[in-house]
């Protein structure tokens, strides 16, 4: 069904040669309206909901900046949190200065974050972009660990374990906004997120952005048309640092604290997961991934302590079977949407759903019981799955879970083959339709 690797992961929708500005601007307008309306949607109109949206906004900017490196320029970084965090520290220090009397509105602090991210992106990028590929990945890992360790060694700048705090309300008011409420913070974040996303989108369409894609595809050929691939990567790196720093600034405003976790390997790993799972080949992919992963992190973690395991397994499944990410998966269906075979594909999904659900349920039961017994013994061994109560200390639920897992898996293998067959038929039909249409 798919090829895998950076190739399929970044199979970008080709940019149309002729400008179609009308369609483009409309999409951004819709996005702006949606962002304005979201915090008032029932379900999200609480402080928790708005906080969630704020976190998603920050993550989206961070993930988009990461994709400037990964999807756009082919650079796999394991230390991108460095620029997020250092930008965050820059912003929080700016906030402290404002708290102590600097007459600048808090709303401009993300720019301090962007400046911090850009500064370090330039400085460290000069060293780290001389090579690409695996070596670059290793350098990013090393620099990440270096910076993380350094934050504990310079408590004056980084505040050690406790981090640096500041207040977002103790500042000159901007148009009557004091950013005390989560709603106002959300709108600030949404505003900057939209601006940043637009900037990154436009960057991809400049000659520099086009050459980033070229360097990703074939750095050697790029050199033979007059471009130094190292320079191109350096520019992408600095730009990615800038926007990561901006996200860090938003983080500083949202939490009013920046600590070492902002530059940690966990955060670097998280942004990689988000971007890849959403889909590195489409502009919207990282945004989707950020939203989904943030939601999983805040909501799912409340229900189960195994949420990271689930995320890891889903990530591996995507790497193996759907490297173009969630967005890529959805768009794939666009290719067969108009064929007759599409209905058969949907039908095969319905059939495949049953054993898949059984298998997943079995796995979930086993995993949750395992976690309960090993990490939350103090809660006892009685557990509730929906309306079913089981005792994890007895053999019955274990056997039941194992049977569901095994049975579901066995049946899935058969149903999945039907799905693949239906897909093949539909996609052949789709190809024939397109070939016929262009004649």
């Amino acid at each position, binding site marked *: 069904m798919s*090829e*895998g*690797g*950076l*190739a*399929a*992961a970044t199979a970008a929708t080709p940019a149309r040669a002729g400008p179609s500005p009308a369609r483009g601007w409309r999409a951004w307008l819709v996005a702006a309206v949606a962002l304005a309306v979201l915090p008032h949607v029932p379900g999200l109109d609480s402080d928790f909901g708005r906080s969630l949206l704020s976190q998603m906004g920050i993550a989206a900017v961070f993930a988009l900046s990461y994709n400037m490196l990964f999807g756009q320029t082919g650079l*796999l970084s394991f230390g991108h949190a460095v620029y997020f965090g250092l930008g965050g520290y820059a912003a929080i220090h700016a906030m402290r200065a404002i708290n102590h009397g600097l007459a600048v509105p808090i709303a401009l602090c993300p720019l301090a974050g962007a400046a911090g991210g850009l500064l370090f992106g330039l400085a460290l990028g000069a*060293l*780290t972009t*001389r*090579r690409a*590929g*695996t*070596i670059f*990945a*290793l*350098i990013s*890992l*090393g*620099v990440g*660990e*270096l910076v993380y*360790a*350094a934050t*504990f*060694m*310079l*408590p*004056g*700048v980084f505040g050690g374990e406790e981090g640096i705090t500041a207040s977002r309300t103790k500042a000159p008011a901007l148009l009557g906004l004091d950013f005390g409420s989560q709603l106002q913070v959300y709108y600030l974040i949404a505003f900057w997120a939209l601006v940043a996303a637009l900037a990154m989108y436009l960057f991809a369409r400049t000659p520099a952005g086009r050459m980033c894609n070229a360097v990703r595809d074939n750095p050697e050929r790029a050199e033979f048309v007059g471009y130094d691939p190292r320079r191109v990567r350096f520019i992408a790196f600095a730009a990615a640092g800038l926007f990561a720093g901006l996200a860090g600034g938003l983080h500083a405003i949202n939490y009013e604290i920046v600590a070492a976790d902002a530059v940690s*390997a966990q955060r670097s*790993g998280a942004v*990689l*997961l988000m971007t*890849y799972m959403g889909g590195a080949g489409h502009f919207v992919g990282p945004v989707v991934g950020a939203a989904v992963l943030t939601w999983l992190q805040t909501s799912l973690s409340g229900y189960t302590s*195994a949420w*990271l*395991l689930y*995320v*890891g*397994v889903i*990530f*591996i499944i995507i*790497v*193996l079977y759907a*490297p173009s990410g969630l967005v890529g998966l959805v768009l794939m269906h666009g290719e067969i949407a108009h064929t007759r075979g599409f209905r058969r594909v949907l039908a095969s999904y319905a059939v495949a759903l049953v054993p898949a659900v059984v298998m997943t349920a079995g796995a979930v039961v086993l*995993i949750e019981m*395992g*976690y309960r017994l*090993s*990490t939350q013994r103090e809660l006892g061994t009685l557990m509730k799955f929906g309306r079913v109560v089981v005792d994890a200390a007895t053999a019955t639920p274990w056997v039941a879970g194992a049977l569901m897992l095994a049975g579901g898996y066995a049946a899935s293998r058969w149903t999945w083959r039907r799905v693949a067959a239906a897909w093949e038929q539909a996609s052949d039909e789709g190809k024939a339709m397109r070939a016929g249409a262009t004649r």
Partner: protein
Amino acid sequence: MLELATISLINGVVYGLLLFMLTSGLTLIFSMMGVLNFAHASVFMLGAYLSFQLGRYVGFWPAIVIAPLACGLVGAAIERYGLRRVHSSGHVAEILFTFGLAYVIEELVTMIWGRNAVANDVPATIDFALFTVFGTTFPAYKGLMMAISVAMFVFLFLVLTRTRIGLIIRAALTHPRMVDALGHDVPGVFALVFAMGSALAGLAGVIGGFMLLTQPTLAHAVGPIVFVIVVLGGLGSLYGALVASMLIGILQTFAVAVDYSLADALRAMGVAIVRGSPLYEVASIKLATAAPVIPYLLLVLMLIVRPRGLFGTRDA
């Protein structure tokens, strides 16, 4: 002074050999397949946990045999059902797969053994003093660890230079596609190499498990250092991995013992840095505090100055 230096040297050598034990398997995998195996440290951790569990049922000495074998099987399974599938898609997919695997293994370990460290204590059979230096005892298990580490080096050296498999692996260092084109059962060799590397990691875990804390974050704690060593030593160089391990082991151990900072050194020379100046904070970091950073500083320096590492045969 001599006492401190001697003890630090001994500890440094011990630490260095421990690091080499960890790294040897990865050197094999990375060199042959070019795969940045993020799951390597996870298999190391698995070895520690398995030996802990097996040790409680059958005792330490059977565990030291069974655990590495089990890890080798795990490695073979990872290669067969995971890596092989993404091998054709390039290094990025392979790296990402092992990256995700590291998360999953850490969580599985938590699921089975919990979040806290398990009581993986030194087995009684090797917990006696081998000799005494300046009043500090040198325990037998450290000696065992050193012996195993050296044995690993010898084993790998012999495999790589004296066997046909080793020849293929060495050829694959510099000409991976050619080896493929020559019709060697590359997938089979890959599986074998990955299994071997994983078994070595598992063996390292058996010993390392009771020298370090056996907890789910173990993999994350040692993982980055292992990559630093592989790059410092040079891709594809077993000898380089040994040298780099020893270098980092000794440097870090000595650094941890030094309770002076740059500011102290300057003061001794008559130069005083004003308290409150921006340089003061950086200059007053004690070397002991900065010790964790040393490997990464070396990494960054090496990558700038000589990306193929100390003894590397090719850039990645």
